[in-house]
């Protein structure tokens, strides 16, 4: 492989990631930047039009208050999130999203996103916080606005960002980022005064259920590899709740969404013997007070009930789509036109966002009105936008954040000038697409404010750039040096290909860090043993090999996932408690311990010393 060309891009605000959070940041930053003539640049490893978790579309927007209709107030949402996360959330961050998100959603409608409406003209609700959309083109619509806001010369597509840069004279300050093109041998050096880390959460850290080709059919996007976390961890930013992971119950093998079935169609989860899982294991919730007494039942506790029923040998488990649809058909007196509408809505739920599930139904000759479908618990994901709160520890909004949670600029991490939004922010769970976009907007505005206050150009050390360039290109050199050792490139004792490395990581995490294969159970001896294997693995990762730019992308995605795994294991070890049964269990600390652990677990990594510093941060109730 030829040596890369280097292109230097200078800007004021740099946005990493062109997904929902990144597009929100771009939209807001570009507006405020005009007043100061600042340059805003976005970098995306794919094509913004179809990138990130919303690439294929969504059938619902899961974070909408409906304040203008008096449907919900932000305080209600804070209480909901607190309860679902078993008492721990950054209430200032959640309130902030809840009070603003309606304006984002109304704006999407204005841009052209089609919403289901009631006869009175309101958005048709799927559930208390969720509204239904015809969302096949959700991402292209949002991308169009972002592209127009930024201007074409300010978007770099097919560039993978691998490193953040901090000021060589002031390492607590961000100064830019480095990445490489996936299309040509080129390294980009982005110099910026403020950086917004808005790439997506982490999939593929744990072994999924499928094997072979099915490895790609996971619940969250396989191209969300945890870049946002790795970048911030390596820059020394403080991370929070990295022990938290998301495990969801979804349709088996296709991983189609269940929200509409549960909330709107009122389908229920029954085992093979017709028992209602939630009813049968109701007493279990009493072991998790006070959260087990709250309504709705927290997501992890619902998983926990299902796990118990599985262990009792009562599977397979089914979402009774048949019963739900038969009841709905009977409610409309079997009017053929209304039945077709119901059927159309049921299929749209998948066709807008998980076509796999629709194809799976068709391949198994499943008519949901006649046959129930199996559900399963997924492998764990690390993300901050769903019913989970992994991410960076960030400052909240000035007007309402307690002093312990505010340090100058909304959504700024502990690295000055480095902001985060979306999956990358810890503590603001349940934001989903619209909330992530809105959080991006906070970061976009705050980043412009930061540049306004800090107009000096931070330093980028050219020696550091040279080191990074060599690091980036090393997989090619590893391959070229060792290529002659074997007649088959796949089997070579001197290197590993990224796919091989990925599978090894997934197996270690599955077995030692409470993956689905371990029934989500771990303990201290298991974690320590896993860390031993990860230490060996890290050395071997220096010997990842690549033969082309696509491989190089995959190598660096493995590094993303590796660092997510490292942080996750540190946090799992540090929290001596099981707060979220159904997400994971500490076999050695099997109970909830509000007295000692009703707090956030935070960490900082020092790359120079290879040291993790763990700490507890207080949980402060902001909303009564």
């Amino acid at each position, binding site marked *: 492989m030829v040596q890369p060309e280097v292109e230097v891009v200078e800007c004021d605000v740099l946005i990493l990631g062109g997904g929902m959070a990144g597009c929100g940041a771009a939209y807001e930053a570009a507006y405020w930047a*005009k007043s100061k003539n600042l340059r805003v640049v976005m970098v995306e490893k794919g*094509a913004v039009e179809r990138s990130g978790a919303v690439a294929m579309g969504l059938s619902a927007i899961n974070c909408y208050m409906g304040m203008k209709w008096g449907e919900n107030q932000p305080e209600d949402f804070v209480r909901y999130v607190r309860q679902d996360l078993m008492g721990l959330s950054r209430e200032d961050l959640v309130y902030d999203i809840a009070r603003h998100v309606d304006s984002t959603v109304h704006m999407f409608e204005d841009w*052209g996103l*089609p919403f289901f409406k009631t006869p009175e003209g309101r958005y048709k609700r799927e559930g208390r916080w969720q509204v239904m959309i015809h969302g096949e083109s959700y991402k292209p619509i949002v991308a169009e606005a972002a592209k127009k806001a930024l201007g074409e010369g300010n978007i770099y597509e097919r560039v993978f960002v691998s490193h953040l840069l901090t000021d060589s004279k002031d390492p607590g300050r961000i100064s830019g980022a480095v990445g490489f093109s996936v299309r040509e041998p080129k390294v980009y050096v982005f110099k910026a005064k403020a950086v917004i880390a808005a790439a997506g959460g982490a999939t593929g850290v744990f072994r999924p259920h499928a094997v072979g080709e099915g490895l790609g059919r996971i619940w969250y*996007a396989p191209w969300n590899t945890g870049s946002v976390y790795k970048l911030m961890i390596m820059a020394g930013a403080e991370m929070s709740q990295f022990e938290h992971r998301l495990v969801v119950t979804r349709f088996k093998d296709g991983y189609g969404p269940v929200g509409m079935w549960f909330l709107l169609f009122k389908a229920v989860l029954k085992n093979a013997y017709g028992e209602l899982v939630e009813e049968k294991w109701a007493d279990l919730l009493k072991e998790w007070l006070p959260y087990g007494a709250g309504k709705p039942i927290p997501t992890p506790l619902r998983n926990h009930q299902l796990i118990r029923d599985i262990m009792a040998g009562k599977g397979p488990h089914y979402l009774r789509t048949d019963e739900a649809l038969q009841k709905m058909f009977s409610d409309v007196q079997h009017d053929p036109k209304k039945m077709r509408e119901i059927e159309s809505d049921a299929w749209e739920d998948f066709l807008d966002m998980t076509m796999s599930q629709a194809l799976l139904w068709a391949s198994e000759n499943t008519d949901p009105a006649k046959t129930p479908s199996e559900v399963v618990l997924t492998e764990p994901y690390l993300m901050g936008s769903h019913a989970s709160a992994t991410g960076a520890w960030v400052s909240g909004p000035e007007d309402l954040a307690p002093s312990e949670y505010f340090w100058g600029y909304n959504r700024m991490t502990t690295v000055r000038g480095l902001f985060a939004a979306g999956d990358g922010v810890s503590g603001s769970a349940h934001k989903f697409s619209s909330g992530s976009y809105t959080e991006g907007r906070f970061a976009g*505005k705050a980043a412009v404010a930061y540049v306004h206050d800090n107009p000096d150009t931070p330093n980028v050390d050219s020696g550091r750039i040279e080191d990074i360039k060599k690091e980036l290109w090393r997989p090619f050199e590893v391959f070229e040096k060792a290529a002659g050792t074997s007649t088959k490139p796949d089997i070579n004792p001197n290197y590993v290909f990224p796919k091989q490395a990925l599978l090894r990581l997934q197996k270690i995490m599955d077995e030692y860090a409470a993956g689905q294969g371990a029934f989500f159970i771990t303990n201290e001896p298991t974690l320590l043993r896993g860390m031993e294997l990860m230490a060996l693995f890290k050395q071997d990762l220096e010997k990842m090999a690549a033969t082309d730019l696509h491989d190089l992308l995959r190598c660096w995605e493995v590094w993303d996932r590796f660092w997510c795994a490292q942080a996750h294991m540190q946090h799992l070890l540090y929290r001596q408690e099981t707060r979220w049964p159904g997400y994971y269990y500490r076999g050695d600390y099997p109970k909830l311990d509000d007295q000692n652990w009703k707090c956030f677990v935070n960490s900082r990594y020092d790359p120079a010393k290879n040291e993790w510093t763990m700490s507890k941060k207080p949980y402060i109730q902001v909303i009564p």
Partner: protein
Amino acid sequence: MPTYVNPDKCDGCKALGQPACHYICPTDIMQLDKAIGKAFNSEPDLCWECYSCVKTCPQSAIAMRGYGDVVPLGASLTPLRGTDSILWTVKFRDGQIKRFKYPIRTTPWGSIEPYAGYPQANPAELKGQELCGQGKFLGVPNLPTVARA
């Protein structure tokens, strides 16, 4: 379900700078096989089946085959995406066919004016809590807040 390319329909997007599927694939899987001048799925085990390439192909040359380790053969799911709606044809393994049409956009493509009707950005408001367009879009007269804890 990984995608596959029909060689009779694919022309490698000769008229474009790069194949449309290669341009759009979120995870850089759809590649051009230069030897035959046609596209192919280079990494089926990381294909999420997002259908971006299927929808974007100007020749409708790309289709989906269920994952080899999970999905029985014989069914198909085919989109026909227009400018304001999408039509899905679901063909079951047993031959049954269902067809569904859904809206995808209520405004013309390219018509977004990002800040239409907004006042000019005022730097004095940079530290405030309002986002741009709040007056137009929030739906309530004042941004809610609470006293600091």
